[in-house]
């Protein structure tokens, strides 16, 4: 197991808490009508996002689906600009045009959240192609949901990446449902990593996505392999504690099931781990909780005070000038 410094562990903890607070605040803002559209929260999956994103280097690249807030935060995007995007303001990362499902930051090599299930997979392959084409040393981390592994995009992209030995880590965030459809009701194989065999691709691990360290280590190893050799398909086993999007009636799972998973809260578990390793105290963790809450409040204020986009802006960025 990697030897984490105290500061690294506390940083990871902070990111997880920051994501949680961000999501909780977004849910409120949605109720207040300040955030519109679809809002897919990451609550419960923080360990997967933080572990995976922390495991890759700055020069590596990231793609994900619409459940993207946690990935953006873990990648270090400016929290003010993220919240401004949620509120549809010009100061948002996508100038208010993308919203919750379309966060991106070119300078962070975060190529975005994508709302068409599976649509970003071939894009990730294309970015990875550049590494081979230009003989550059980077890899691409492409996250997707379990449900995305059943769409045609998945098959075409994974096959292509295998044929061309592209440096992609295909990371399935298996939260056990695609909307209301359980994995076994939608996929011929329940162990999604087995799909790697169909492409002659390295079958990566099914790591514990509720454990940030386990995810970190698994993704780190997969990315090193991918950069040198070619694609890896791996899974992080996780669970979303809240509905698919806002207003999900959740008829497909029991309250009991949700409660059982929620008791295994990845943030609480990680806090306990840090303390058990004597890398942090209750007081230090509480301070980070406080710091995260303040950062989110400041971000909300920034977003609310930012201007709305104008009518003219509709016509901007449609084409490259």
């Amino acid at each position, binding site marked *: 197991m990697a030897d984490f410094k105290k500061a690294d562990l506390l940083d990871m903890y902070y990111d997880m808490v920051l994501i949680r607070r961000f999501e909780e605040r977004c849910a409120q803002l949605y109720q207040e009508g300040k955030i*519109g*559209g*679809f809002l897919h929260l990451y609550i419960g999956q923080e360990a997967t996002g933080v572990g995976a994103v922390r495991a890759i280097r700055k020069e590596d690249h990231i793609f994900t689906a619409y459940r993207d807030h946690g990935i953006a935060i873990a990648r270090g995007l400016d929290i003010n600009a993220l919240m401004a*995007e949620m509120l*549809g*303001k010009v100061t948002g990362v*996508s100038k*208010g*045009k*993308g*919203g*919750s*499902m*379309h966060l991106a930051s070119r300078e962070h090599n975060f190529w975005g959240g*994508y*709302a*068409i*299930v*599976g*649509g970003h997979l071939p894009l990730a392959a294309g970015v990875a192609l550049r590494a081979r084409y230009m003989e550059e040393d980077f890899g691409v981390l492409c996250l997707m949901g379990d*449900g*995305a592994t*059943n*769409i*045609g995009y998945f098959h075409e992209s994974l096959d292509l990446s295998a044929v061309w030995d592209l440096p992609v880590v295909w990371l399935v965030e298996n939260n056990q449902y*695609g*909307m*209301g*459809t359980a994995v076994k*009701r*939608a*996929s011929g194989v329940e162990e999604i990593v087995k799909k790697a065999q169909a492409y002659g691709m390295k079958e990566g691990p099914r790591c514990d996505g509720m454990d940030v360290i386990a995810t970190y280590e698994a993704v780190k190893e997969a990315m090193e392999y991918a950069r040198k050799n070619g694609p890896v398909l791996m899974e992080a086993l996780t669970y979303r504690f809240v509905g698919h999007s806002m207003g999900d*009636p959740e*008829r*497909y799972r029991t309250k009991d099931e949700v409660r059982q998973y929620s008791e295994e809260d990845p943030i609480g578990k990680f806090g306990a781990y840090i303390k058990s390793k004597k890398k942090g105290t209750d007081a230090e963790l509480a301070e980070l909780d406080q710091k995260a809450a303040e950062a989110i409040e400041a971000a909300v204020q920034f977003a609310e005070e930012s201007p*709305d*986009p*104008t*009518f003219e*802006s*509709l*016509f901007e960025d*449609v084409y490259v000038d």
Partner: protein
Amino acid sequence: MAETKRMTIREALSQALREEMYRDETVFIMGEEVGVWGGTYAVTRGFYDEFGEKRVRDTPIAEMAIVGAGVGAAMAGLRPVSELMTINFAFLALDAIVNHAAKIHSMFGGQFKVPLTIRTTTGGGRQLGATHSHSPEIIFAHFPGLYVCCPAMADDAYGMIKTAIRNDNPVMVIEHSTLYQTRGEVPLDQDYLVPVGESRIVREGKDVTLVSFSKGVHWCLEAADILAKEGIEAEIVDLRWLRPLDTSKFIESFKKTNRMVVVEEGLPQFGVGAEITARVMEEAFDWMDAPIKRVTAEDVPLPYSREIEQMALPSAEKVVKAVKEVL
């Protein structure tokens, strides 16, 4: 006339589907979240328990297969209702729709028929961003071999579903995501059908003809109310079917009013307005007193931000303004 009952478009769709499933056991539904979830727009709520998983089939996220397998099942004698959660995802199924559903009957010299219904929902205005806010009905209306209808009213929603299911051709029923709660009178007649390719006048008037379909009809109705207060009488033609396209009603109306505004939620270029205008030129040029106007979305990808998204879409006010420009 049969007795009627007031219900929402959602209820009308739901009732029509339910009745057709009881009437004909080869009718079944497949799509994402149609079963356990109860349908993303709650149209098939309760169906899973009522009909079981054989006839209410949750699929993987696999639009190509949802339509493609629907085509095959239809060729084999079943009457599938393939549901695409929203029309934005119909782009993933475009090949199955265009190259197979619409072609197979003709391409094999009439040997096979494809009695497939494709249900989906269109429309923007809900802050879903560029990929989830399309109104691309015209794309599907481009291809012979496929019928395309767009219910704006509850009775049409009810009758179009039945017509689509009973028709031996592939029919796309394109609902509107913001109209499910819209209420209207629905005939209490289990065999109520909407004749394929028949438009209808939903409001009579003598000063200007408004041509629209789907949500556009409601913008037109609102605009007509505003105009009426100023003494302007607008006649509204609801196309209902984009294919086959019924030109008779709007041409007749135009010959009476000599002025026209075409209203659609989709993009302007190569849109319904362009088609209707061309038809008027071909069939009623001599009756034209003013250039025909189009009210459409702005020619841009729809943004997330609420205010500017609304600004980019048509509205009753924009229809009123256009009418005043042609008067």
